[in-house]
């Protein structure tokens, strides 16, 4: 027996199953990053005056700005890829999804460069409590980026076959993957000022 509302929206709730599912999952993710941001606040406010290290002492703000621009751009291309499918243009979908994936790779390369530089000059998570929370938060965010890229890569490659058989369901998948991708982007928008600027 087919599970109802897998593709079409349930009339009284207005959503299909996966869309509701991903929103609930994101709520849980908000709590995860919320807990870590709260930890940052608690550790920083609890530090004796003058002992807290600031991000600008160690971190490269221009590179992080570049990464912010890359991620925001990828969010835009992600929406465009979904919109292309809605307009029945599969070729454009592949192009925009390709851009999104490429932007993810770019973000990771810049991040890897930043990490590598820190390690070279002897800055590790154990060096001080600021770097500890910096590496934990950006590391966990990086894992989320990688997770999103795996999903996007699947939807660009083998998963795209579904467009031929169930176009509506496939479009929904892009929407759901997009919601997750925007969330990952949004986390970075909070991470950037918190860690680099404040």
């Amino acid at each position: 027996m087919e599970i109802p509302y897998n593709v079409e929206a349930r009339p009284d709730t207005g959503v299909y199953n996966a869309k509701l599912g991903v929103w609930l999952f994101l709520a849980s993710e908000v709590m995860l990053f919320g807990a870590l941001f709260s930890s940052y606040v608690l550790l920083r406010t609890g530090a004796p005056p003058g002992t807290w290290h600031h991000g600008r002492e160690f971190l490269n703000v221009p590179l992080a700005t570049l990464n912010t621009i890359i991620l925001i751009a990828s969010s835009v291309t992600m929406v465009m890829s979904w919109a292309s499918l809605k307009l029945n243009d599969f070729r454009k979908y592949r192009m925009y999804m390709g851009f999104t994936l490429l932007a993810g790779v770019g973000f990771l390369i810049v991040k890897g460069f930043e990490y590598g530089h820190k390690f070279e000059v002897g800055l590790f998570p154990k060096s001080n409590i600021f770097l500890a929370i910096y590496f934990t938060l950006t590391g966990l965010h990086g894992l989320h980026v990688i997770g999103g890229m795996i999903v996007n890569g699947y939807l660009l490659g083998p998963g795209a076959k579904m467009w031929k058989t169930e176009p509506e369901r496939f479009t929904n998948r892009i929407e759901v993957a997009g919601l997750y991708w925007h969330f990952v982007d949004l986390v970075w928008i909070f991470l950037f000022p918190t860690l680099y600027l404040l």
Partner: protein
Amino acid sequence: MALVDERVAHGHSESHHHELGFWQKYVFSQDHKVIGIQYGFTSLCFLLFGFSLMMMMRWSLAYPNQPIPLVGKLLKASGGIIAPELYNQLGAMHGTIMVFLGIVPLAVGAFGNYVVPLQIGAPDMAFPKLNMASYWSYFIGGVIMLSSFFAPGGAAQSGWTSYPPLSDIAPTGQTMWLFGMLFLIISSVLGSMNFLVTIIQLRAPGLTWMRLPFFVWAQFVTSFLLLLAFPALQAAAVLQMMDRLAGTSFFLPSGLVVSGQQLAVAGGGSPLLWQHLFWFLAHPEVYVLILPAFGIIAEVIANNTRKPLWGYRSMVYAVTFLGFMSFIVWAHHMFMTGMGTVMSTFFQTTTMIISIPSVIVLTALIISLWGASIRYTVPMLFALAFLPMFAIGGLTGLPLGLAPSDIHLHDTYYVIGHFHYVVAPGTIFAMFAGIYYWFPKITGRMMSSKLGQLHFWPSFLFINGIFMPMFIQGLAGVQRRLYDGGASYSHAQPVLHWNVFMSISAWCLALSQIPFIINLFWSIRKGQKVGANPWEATTLEWAAAPSPPIAHGNFPEVPTVVRGPYDYSLPGASQDFVPQHQPQPQEA
């Protein structure tokens, strides 16, 4: 009942369509019923294992430094004596296993998976593949936890709460505890998301929110708690993992001295941070343990009193309110940490407020008994025992929620008595009620009532024998987590004799579970065969065939719900129950 006969008639022809292989059908199954049974079996095994750890601890408490019989042969190094280090491992793992691997998977994974889709008239859970992933993630987490006993230095030994700095510097077993916990959290988050989508999206036509069986409401609120509270522990586990593996000092303050030596870490961390993150999960977790129990008890009581639940709406509003409040009471576990009186005042106020909805639910259940001609079935016996037992557990919690009395009682056996009354004769009795109640749905056979009675009465007696003296010891100031049960403290001497009494009660409680285990396996093959609705119940799960077919949906056609969940003894009806999908009472 026409629905059922049709189902049985079609059962054979349908099952020929696409038969699944053994592995897909019974091991890597995506069917909610099989996954529910997998959860049930695994979690019952973990409950038994966690109980065995406790029985070893009880030996050490009653007869400290004496070789333990039977299992003593395994402890060659210490000559059969339970050393303090081993006692700490047993204590930490007993708590972890009972809460995270036993009761939550049984209450949510097993009962939720099996019953919720049936009660809302759905063919399966919304995401069957995620459901399977959720079970196997739980299974892997459990295996990691169990194997941590063989790690160098043994399993986790910093209590089930894993408070740093102690846990930061504990042996390898603690790292495995954290990894195991990550798997369990992933399992819970996936599972709870699945339940929420299932309940919101897959309700049968006509099944409006106020027509949902109370059990579904309880699972609904529980899922929200799991979804939103567990990530805090996930964050905490990641931070502790960084402390242990990457040398950070999130939970290690500057200048910490261990064994006379200052730790070579950067410092600047806060042990209290862990406690905040941990209890942000673990207080909602307490309600995760009790809400499904409320749900089961409500179903059993409505069915056996043959009356609608008294105050169904109030109960629904109460559990919803309870869910919200449970997120802002966590620091009542931390009155002794020196976090300040302003914080304490806030959290004891919220704690007093949260006791109100629990009392509403309990009161509604007790009033439901009023004037009923009660059927004293085995599930009903457990449900009736639940009410006073949970009341004792809940009411003894009030002095702990108020800072002045908590200062005296904190970390004593009074605390152990309090929460064990909530979860052992409370939740676990509700789980037993649920097993006896839904067993005929799962297998098509009844469990033996005689063996059930033989299980219930001694269990009821001995479980009180274990936990009641804990209040006496706790009020006398005997502290928890002592491997000798307080023998080395002079203030504990007047109440020390209770240790032997409690330990013998615990071992007798173990013996009382033998009729249950025999009953469970015997009834699968030899139990009395029954039809789809042996308890003459009203909710939708009883409209499905007994032992509903695997992987072919639950109902031959989607049932349409026309009435509330508990239309028992409806005036004008020919029978004393009218199922939710039955249009006219006269037809019944």
